């Protein structure tokens, strides 16, 4: 059974978003890490890069396969989590806390409203 924290917003492509003022933290969901299993490599965007909502901006690789990570919102990358680059297994063990990917300064805060609520995401993954 996947953990779906109630204080997060969710993208259909299995990223989560934690908004704090005009900045948000992005990671992948517990469901996504469980599907991938054995995460061995994470590639993050450069700090300062501008991304659009839906743009592929990170890569996570399991033993079996490489998967693109899509930014749930538009904005400028302000920080990345070097801990998951050094220890990719953090994404498996703490996907919605220590296993976060990057922080982004929102350029269009209304995009957040288009993301899924915890209940809607739960429905999407059949939970």
């Amino acid at each position, binding site marked *: 059974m996947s953990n779906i924290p109630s204080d997060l917003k969710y993208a259909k492509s299995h990223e989560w978003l934690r908004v704090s003022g005009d900045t948000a933290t992005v990671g992948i969901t517990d469901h996504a890490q469980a*599907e991938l299993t*054995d995460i061995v*490599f994470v*590639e993050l965007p450069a700090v300062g890069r501008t991304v659009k909502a839906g743009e592929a901006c990170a*890569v996570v690789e*399991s*033993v*079996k396969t*490489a998967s693109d990570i899509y930014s749930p919102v538009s904005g400028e990358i302000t920080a990345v989590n070097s801990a998951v680059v050094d220890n990719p297994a953090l994404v498996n063990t703490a996907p919605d806390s220590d296993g976060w990917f990057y922080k982004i300064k929102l350029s269009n805060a209304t995009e957040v409203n288009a993301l899924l609520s915890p209940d809607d995401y739960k429905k999407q993954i059949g939970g």
Partner: protein
Amino acid sequence: MLKRTALFSAHQKLGAKLIDFGGWEMPVQYTSITDEHLAVRNAAGIFDISHMGEVTVSGAGAESFLNSVLTNDIRKLVSGEGQYTLMCNERGTVIDDLYAYKLSEAVYFLIINASRIEPDVAWLDAQTAKFSGDLKMTDASHNYAAVAVQGPRVQEFINTVIPGASSSAMRVNAVNDLKKNQIGGFKFENHSVLISRTGYTGEDGFEIVGSDESIQHLWDKFISVGQPFGLKPAGLGARDTLRTEVCYPLYGHELDEETTPIEAGVGFFVALDKGEFNGRAVLADQKANGVKKKLVAFKMTDKSAPPRPHYPIWANGASVGEVVSGTQSPSLNLGIGMGYVPPELAKPDTKIEIEIRGKHYAAVVVPKPIYKKG
């Protein structure tokens, strides 16, 4: 509609992730590829290999027929022995790689790749039509299910799972008395099963072929008897990482109809001295005069994402080839793979680069196998 093996519901019960593998709905993993991989390296694992094909060839002409279509010398086999071999066309390129077993005088049993059953049988049919000796060939793939039980601890419990002596092919008092590449017919409950001491993981182990019902019962018994020894069900994901570490070729990756056994580094299984066979002229020429591409094994030396099939290989500023198999090695905890390069770049310690999403990462050619026990 994907085909399902006799063990499909067993996989579902275990919560396996299922994928399409050559038209078969097969388990890629049960819990984690890494865990399953390490279980096989350190203890034991059981794989469903029911999707693989089986062909029986018998008759007074069987030996000379098989020696004309396969690269290895089948005359070296005594009853109860098997050998790795390849089937080539006239261009010397590979139609399939397979195991050929001699069950008794003039009775042979071939185990072929699941994805190649149709082309293999079509090719063999065309060859039998040209052959004048006494010969009967049957595609028996639908009659059999199969499991592979692999790992250093399998020998501790295999005799408990399947007690008793063999009654056909290699005569031994117990399954564990089979030596590498030997095959025996055994009784399990009321079923006849064929057991060979072979595998695709680089570990000691056995492959067992039998009826759907016998393999279903065997699977359950292996799981319950093997569990205290650390046995885990293992999927195709672990099967791929295990075979890549020990550099066993997989058809469609290292081998295809554009590649010869000499290029793929399996010339040891090509018996040029046995007389005429399909592809011999090309293979003899390559052995004498060299090849244009050669399969190498490599390890990543830069920290990078795992190499994957089709990633370009670079050397001295030029693109020189392509990765055919690549993964994160669970045993070595680094990126490993195999790929084709020009022969002058095939020597161990040659520095190469792997292109991953537009960036180049350093790698080094290493001797095969990449992983060695101990």
